């Protein structure tokens, strides 16, 4: 069982940059409809890809998280970045259906 982790600036280093396994970080905000639509998909993927991929969320509405949005040059949400060994290896912008997204993720995970 792996749940999506709600991240703040404080645990970004530990959970994302220093993670042993690849991490997908979803930058989102509650006023963004596609983000809300993406949320249950990420919950399911987090279970299905458990062990292979960790999924985290950053709520960009929170003032303490703005710096992360700035740092990672977020200009449009949902914006999901895939990190491996602290480096961004792929970026996904906009809503995508679960099955398609799972395939996209598995493709990157298997080839990197």
């Amino acid at each position, binding site marked *: 069982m792996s749940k999506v982790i709600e991240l703040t600036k404080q645990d970004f280093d530990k959970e994302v940059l220093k993670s042993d396994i690849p991490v997908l970080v979803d930058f989102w*905000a*509650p*006023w*963004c*409809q*596609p*983000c*809300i*639509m993406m949320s*249950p*998909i990420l*919950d*399911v993927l987090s279970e299905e890809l458990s062990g292979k991929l960790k999924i985290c969320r950053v709520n*960009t*509405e929170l003032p303490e998280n703005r710096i992360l*949005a700035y740092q990672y*040059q*977020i*200009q*449009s*949400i949902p*914006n999901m970045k895939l990190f491996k060994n602290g480096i961004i290896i792929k970026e996904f*912008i*906009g809503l995508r*259906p*679960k*099955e398609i997204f799972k395939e996209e993720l598995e493709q990157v995970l298997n080839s990197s």
Partner: protein
Amino acid sequence: MNTEFTENLKDRYPLIIIGAGPAGLTASIYASRYKLEHLVIGEAIGGLAFEAHKICNFPIENEISGRDITKKMQEHARSLGANIIMDKVIGVQEKNEGENKIFKITTQSNKVFLANTVLLALGTERRRLDLPGENRFIGKGISYCATCDAMFYQNKTVAVVGGSNSANTSSLYLAEIAKKVYQIYRRDKLRGETSWIEQILHNQKIKVIYNTNIIGLKGEEKLEKIVLDTPYQGMKELAIDGLFVEIGSVPQKALIKDLSLQTDENGYIKVTSDQRTNRLGIWAAGDITTNSNNFRQIITACSEGAIAAESIFKFIKQHTS
């Protein structure tokens, strides 16, 4: 909500509503009040209305966000027992079942449902600029949703393209956050509600550039400049950090084409006064239709949804009694 989390789904419903915006959700509320069992399938729960930053013309509230109004509609529909699932319908096929017709509805996540009647409340999708590089810059300077992305442009310079209500409200919202807003419009006067236009013309941060089109997008990693067909202050290129595209919407096409529904020349579904399409068993409501004098608003979408639900109820009653 995702299908995975929805319990008690059936394979077959007397009515399936495709679309979960104001039209589809209102139809669901009415259907539930008529005890008409139904399923709502929507790709984006809340529809386009969710993206409205501020709604000031819906009775009951002086001012309400699109997010809140659609949340209320959804909660209302669910509280009456509606099943609402988030999925995209990719096919509607008509089948014969003995003497009767039945519709087979297939979704993107490979779910199949059967329905005796179908209500299409599909709404519209945002019109794109259709300029080279547009796709490359999505999320890197180009946005189609000011409500979603405005806050990433704090103290930046942005442009809004368009001149009707959604462009006008986007400019006003962006002006609360950005340093400078250029609103670029192809005509010589803004359209839409006079109240918004007056606010724009009095806003120091907004500069409306009339009679001008965007003909190019430039930038390396992200959008840096837009190219104008008419020079602004002697310059054909305008340096900006973000471009918000608000040039209206076009009707959803795919399902309409598959079903050979009659449309007007712009692709909106032709319906009768009780929201029937030319095809028996299929109704349409909301922004997707030619009704309501082509006035595409939340209240008119709700109204068409209500009319459709009542008409479907009568139809089903007639055919089952």
